[in-house]
């Protein structure tokens, strides 16, 4: 009698109610679908910036009477790039050391010119450059600044390493009468 009862229990088919579990699963699925928002692909540019040092630079590159006789003097530690801005905040030109890279907006043609100038400079004097120092006009829009940084990041030192030490400082406005 006992044996028969045990066998009867073992043969009984267990039926789980899947509908309840499916309801819950669909609710979870709905939550994840509604809250799903793929984040845009963002890159980043890593910089190490030293503590602030007071700087007073002219708005434009050195006047004629202050230009060093040795043109390599500006490249001893840092490669200086001056970036003035127009009234709308767009880039109005770029000067690398003592020579104009281009004048006008930061379009692809002008950026290619800057790229060519920087390539030449790094090919000749890359060993002497510790950092690229960008002297940026206060009103220059971040978008144009990043385009210049992009060009600088593409440069390579003579040993093949990419340029990664980039710093920037604010250009001071020239005082009236000077």
């Amino acid at each position, binding site marked *: 009698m006992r044996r028969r009862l045990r066998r009867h229990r073992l043969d009984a088919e267990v039926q789980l109610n899947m509908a309840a579990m499916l309801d819950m699963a669909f609710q979870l699925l709905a939550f994840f679908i509604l809250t799903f928002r793929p984040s845009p*692909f963002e890159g980043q540019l890593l910089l190490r910036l030293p503590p602030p040092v007071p700087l007073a630079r002219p708005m434009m590159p050195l006047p004629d009477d202050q230009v060093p006789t040795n043109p390599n003097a500006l490249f001893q530690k840092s490669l200086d790039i001056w970036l003035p801005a127009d009234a709308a905040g767009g880039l109005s030109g770029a000067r690398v050391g003592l020579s104009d890279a281009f004048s006008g907006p930061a379009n692809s043609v002008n950026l290619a010119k800057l790229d060519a100038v920087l390539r030449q400079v790094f090919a000749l004097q890359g060993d002497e450059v510790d950092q690229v120092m960008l002297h940026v006009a206060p009103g220059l829009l971040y978008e144009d600044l*990043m385009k210049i940084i992009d060009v600088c990041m593409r440069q390579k030192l003579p040993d093949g390493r990419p340029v990664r030490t980039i710093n920037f400082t604010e250009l001071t406005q020239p005082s009236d009468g000077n």
Partner: protein
Amino acid sequence: MLHSARAEPNLVPILDMVFQLITFFMLVVNFKGAETDQSLELPVLGSARPVDTKGEENLLVLNIDSLGRLKVYGAIKDVKNYIASEARNEADKLAIRKEGFKRGDDLPATVVIRADKAIPFKLLNEIVRVCQENGYRKFSLKAVSQREER
């Protein structure tokens, strides 16, 4: 006779599929998205690449709009107070965890700057300067690698 027939569909395959979908969404869910302001238009930078810090470094994410306002989880905060308080908290943690760390030492955390492309350099530079005055030295400028349709 036909009316009394009871249909019992097999729900196991659909349940399997639903669980697979749930697993997918759970894996791709991004909880960090809340701290990034997606309304900002980041500049486009071709050479921008994602850098994996492998969770070793603390990040201070600053969302800065075109007017130079700092937004934290959508709320506008005072730049100096917020950065100073974050730096204090970071220094307090390091003083406990890291041997030899003194107040005033450089902070190892990276400041992630997510600035709108229309912000003038002057406003951005002021924020960078505040960070530097509070001990931050490492900065990461965020950009998108290509223009995305919004």
